[in-house]
């Protein structure tokens, strides 16, 4: 039982890290940023590149990989989504472009690094630490701690700073924000930069904990989307709730019915929410959610 809770906490931490960036971008961009999964993968491959090809030590390599993925995210916005916004493209066109970006980017990793699973040589593998009767590795503990800290930072950033105020202005009414002098494009670039860095960090943490594959991003990304939808777009508390719910459903189902039912269980939760409560637990009433 303690192990089940520990596994849930770890899974929720990864989903939360990805969901924070996805939600941040979704609220200003108003489209499903599927390529966020490729940015997550880029964090992992960025770390591999810096450590194993350039031979830089791990403590220096991690920030580099995080910055690289942040820059990739901002570049995606600059090259693809900003021109689409200028044309008033619908969310569906953004989604199609994002799917294309995801496929092109992850397969480019497969071309460059190979299809096979890679591992990053980290510190010597040690037995997991015992925490309240469950076993977690140090990197897993760091993952959980970082996701708590970053979630708190995100809330502070959004509600207590000037950048956060501008961000919320664009979320509420982008046209009005433009009219009052808020640099909307800069706010979007900033959102992509911050959200993508956090996704890159999640990729780095997963790569250090397990391993890396070109296809590693899609599963966690979709779970993050599920958490955002289930929690309610735009609500930080909702997102935490959604991430924990998804992780708990997955791990409980995996524990009792077998690991291969984890994913379908998570998607069943998504479809049920979409059908019966599209705005999620704590989403705003109409506009923000997916209801027609």
């Amino acid at each position, binding site marked *: 039982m303690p192990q089940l809770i520990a596994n849930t906490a770890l899974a929720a931490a990864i989903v939360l890290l990805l969901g924070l960036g996805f939600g941040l971008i979704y609220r200003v961009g108003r489209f499903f940023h599927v390529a966020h999964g490729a940015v997550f993968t880029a964090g992992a491959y960025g770390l591999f590149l810096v450590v194993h090809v350039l031979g830089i030590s791990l403590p220096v390599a991690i920030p580099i990989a995080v910055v690289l993925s942040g820059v990739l995210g901002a570049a995606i916005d600059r090259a693809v989504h900003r021109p689409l916004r200028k044309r008033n493209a619908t969310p569906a066109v953004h*989604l199609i472009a994002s799917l*294309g970006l995801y496929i*092109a980017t992850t*397969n480019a990793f*497969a071309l460059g690094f190979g299809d096979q699973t890679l591992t990053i040589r980290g510190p010597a593998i040690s037995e997991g630490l015992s925490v309240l009767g469950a076993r977690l590795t140090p990197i897993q503990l760091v993952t959980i701690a970082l996701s708590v800290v970053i979630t708190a930072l995100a809330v502070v950033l959004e509600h207590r700073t000037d950048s956060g105020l501008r961000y919320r202005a664009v979320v509420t009414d982008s046209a009005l924000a433009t009219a009052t002098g808020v640099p909307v494009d800069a706010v979007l670039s900033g959102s992509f930069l911050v959200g993508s860095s956090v996704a890159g960090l999640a990729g780095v943490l997963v790569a250090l904990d397990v391993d890396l594959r070109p296809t590693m991003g899609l599963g966690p990304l979709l779970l993050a989307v599920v958490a955002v939808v289930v929690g309610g777009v735009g609500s930080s508390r909702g997102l935490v709730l959604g991430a924990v719910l998804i992780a708990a459903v997955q791990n409980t189902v995996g524990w009792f019915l077998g690991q291969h039912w984890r994913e379908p269980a998570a998607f069943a939760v998504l*479809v049920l929410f979409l059908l019966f409560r599209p705005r999620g637990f704590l989403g705003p009433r109409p506009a923000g959610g*997916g209801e*027609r």
Partner: protein
Amino acid sequence: MDYLFHMLVVACIYGTLAIALNLVLGYTGLLSLAQAAFYGLGAYSSALASVHLGLPFSVGMIIGGATAAALSLVVSLSAARLRDDYFAIATFGFQYIVWHLVNNWTDVTRGPMGIAGIPRPSVLGFTMASPVSFLVLAVGMLLIAYVVSARIVRSQFGRVLLAIREDEALAEMLGKSPLQFKVKVFGVCAFLAGMAGAAYGHYFTYVSPTSFTVMESILILAMVIIGGAGSLAGPIVGATLLVALPEVLRFLGIPSSAAATMRQVIYGGVLVAVALYRPKGLLGRFGFGL
């Protein structure tokens, strides 16, 4: 020569899938990422019907289409409540769940091992064992799909679909129930995809979950969008281009293992370029609100 016929059979199967998706995507304006789920449902149900019950291909094709069409209700009914991009995510979820059910329900589907020994179709004692004889059948299926979609598009029913695509509230105001039309067009789309799945199973004589992943759904979507959503010929052009692409890459001297990955990079890039520079696709008239 057989290889060329083989590629043409594959192009016909994808062409049918793309034509079917185009009815939903190009003519009704619904972004669906579940096409490979319907394709797989058709492939599996006809494979099971022929391996366990010994039913002939023609019946299997109808069973495949009907199974897919029945399950399409789950997707199309959700369209009543969801905005377009949320609808796309719901279809994504449906695709994932179907895939995992096929992969995990080993008692019936044999899971990742797949179902082997599906007989090649035979007509009056003549078995279509070579690609060229199967090609006749595959072209026939493509023609059926084309004619069905052309007739739908040019009918009263098709004009209502276009009205829903352009302005759903207006269509509703004119007394048409968008949901009813969406359910019907999704049924046709899934039926055709299920038929294509049955053809796939009986052609390769083997089905496994790897052929019906969400990536396959995105590939079919890319065929429609690159060829041109909302045009009758567009999906066939898109399907042919994307089926031929790895062959062209191989011809250019790229090893076939890298060619498959490179095809993904290219079509992903083309998808982005189409969204950016030519949202209507090569032959399309419809660019998702552009």
